[in-house]
C-alpha cells in the first residue's frame, strides 16, 4: 500500500509540472565550439520527420532561387538513414547512426522589402569547419529559401545572416536537416540583429531594421523537435517591443471585397456586389 501511495504522489507531482516554457534565443554567439559540446540533461526529443514540399519558386535549385559562393556537393544523394537525427545539444549538434548522409539547410524568412539578403550556413564537425555555403538574393521574400552543405558525421551548424533593408524589415533564421526519410526541423530561432553601423542589438522574436541600414547578425540556434518548431516559435515567445514595432496585436484593417452567392449543388455563382469593411473613423 505504501508503494501505491508513492505512485499516486509521483503521478500527482508529474502532472502538476505542466508545460515548460521554451526559452527564446540565447543571444548572439558567432564562435563555433572548439569541442563537441556536452549534451544537457533535458535533451529535447527527436522531432517527427516531415517532408516539406516547397513551391518551385522557393527551391534552392528552382527557377526563382539564386545562390552564390562555394558550397559542398549539391548533387550528392543522401544514403539510407537507419535512424532519425538525434538532437543532443543546444548548439545544433546532430548525430545519427547507420550510413546516413545529411544535408544541412538553413532558411531565412524575411518580412517587408529588402535590397539584398545574405545567408551563410556553416557546418562544423567536431569543432572544425567542414562546409559552408553563402546564399545571396535580392528582392523581397516572405517564405523560406535555403542554402545547403552536404557532409557526414556529427555536425554543428551555425548560421550567420545579414541584409540591407529598404524599410521596416525583420528576419528569422531556421535550420533544417534533410535525410532520405524526409525533413526535420532541428532548430529554428529568431536572429538577434546587430548593425555594423548604428543599429542597436534587438531582442527576439523579430528585429526591426532601419531604412537603408546594413546589418549583420549571428545567432546560435536552439534545437527544437520538429513538431514544436512547426507549431510556432513565434507563439511561444512573449511579444517584445523592437524599436518602432507595434506589438498591439490588433487585427483588422480595411478591406474591399467582391462577394458571390454560391449554389453548391450546381456550382452557380450570383454576384452580390462590392463591399468595403473596416475600422473607419466616424
Amino acid at each position, binding site marked *: *500500500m505504501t508503494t*501505491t*501511495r508513492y505512485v*499516486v504522489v509521483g*503521478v*500527482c507531482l508529474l*502532472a*502538476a509540472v*505542466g508545460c515548460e516554457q521554451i526559452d527564446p534565443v540565447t543571444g548572439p554567439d558567432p564562435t563555433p565550439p572548439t569541442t563537441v559540446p556536452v549534451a544537457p540533461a533535458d535533451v529535447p526529443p527527436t522531432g517527427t520527420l*516531415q517532408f*516539406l514540399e*516547397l*513551391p518551385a519558386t522557393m527551391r534552392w535549385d528552382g527557377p526563382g532561387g539564386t545562390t552564390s559562393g562555394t558550397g559542398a556537393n549539391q548533387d550528392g544523394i543522401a544514403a539510407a538513414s537507419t535512424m532519425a537525427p538525434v538532437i543532443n545539444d543546444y548548439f545544433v549538434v546532430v548525430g545519427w547512426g547507420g550510413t546516413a548522409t545529411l544535408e544541412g539547410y538553413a532558411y531565412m*524568412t524575411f*518580412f517587408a522589402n529588402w535590397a539584398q539578403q545574405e545567408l551563410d550556413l556553416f557546418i562544423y564537425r567536431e569543432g572544425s569547419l567542414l562546409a559552408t555555403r553563402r546564399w545571396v538574393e535580392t528582392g523581397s521574400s*516572405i*517564405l*523560406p529559401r535555403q542554402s545547403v552543405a552536404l557532409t557526414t558525421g556529427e555536425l554543428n551548424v551555425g548560421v550567420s545572416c545579414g541584409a540591407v533593408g529598404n524599410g*521596416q524589415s*525583420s528576419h528569422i533564421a531556421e535550420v533544417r536537416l534533410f535525410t532520405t526519410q524526409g525533413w526535420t526541423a532541428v532548430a529554428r530561432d529568431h536572429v538577434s540583429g546587430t548593425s555594423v553601423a548604428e543599429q542597436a542589438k534587438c531582442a527576439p522574436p*523579430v528585429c*526591426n531594421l532601419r531604412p537603408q541600414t546594413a546589418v549583420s547578425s549571428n545567432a546560435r540556434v536552439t534545437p527544437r523537435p520538429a513538431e514544436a518548431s*512547426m507549431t*510556432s516559435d*513565434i*507563439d511561444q515567445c512573449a*511579444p517584445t517591443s*523592437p524599436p*518602432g*514595432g*507595434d*506589438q*498591439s*496585436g*490588433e*487585427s*483588422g*484593417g*480595411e*478591406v*474591399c*471585397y*467582391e*462577394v*458571390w*452567392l*454560391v*449554389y*453548391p449543388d450546381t456550382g452557380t*455563382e450570383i454576384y*452580390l*456586389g*462590392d*463591399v*468595403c*469593411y*473596416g*475600422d*473607419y473613423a*466616424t
Partner: protein
Amino acid sequence: MQSLTILLSLACVLAIAPVRRSIAQAANPPGFTSVTLVSASNLPRGAKVLVERRAALHPRDVILVDLDRATPHDLAAAVQTLAALDQRAGEHAGSSLRASPKSYTPPRGFEQSRFGREMKLGLVRLLAAPETTLAGIGRVQSVAITVVQPRVGKFKGH
C-alpha cells in the same frame, strides 16, 4: 489505508484539473477564432486568396490560398473579409458565400503586430501541412489556424 489512497487520488485529480483547464484554454483562448487554410492554385479571377463560407459543410469557413503568390497581407485581407461576412450575412445568412478581397489596408504596425506574424506563420504552416481530405474540396494541403478575433468594424456604403 485504502481510504488514504483514495484521498490522495482525489487530491491528485484536483491538482491536475487546473493544469488541464489551462491547456484547454491555450487551445481555444478567448478573443481568438479558427479558420482553415487550404492550398490551392489557379483560383478564379486570378485571385491569390478566396474566402468561402460553406453553409452545409465542415469546416464552414475556408480560405483558399495560392501559396505561390499569396503574402501575409493577402491572408490578412481574407481574414478581414471573413469577419465582414460574419457581420453582414443579411438575407444570405445560412447561404454559401464566396468572396475575394480586392484591396486591403492593414492596421498600423501590421508587419510587427501579432496579427501580422500570425498571417505570415499561417502561410508557412500551410506550406508544411500534410494533405488531408476536406469535405467539398477533396484531398488537399490544409491547416486550421487560430487568429486574433477581428474587431467589429463598419461597412462603407456603395
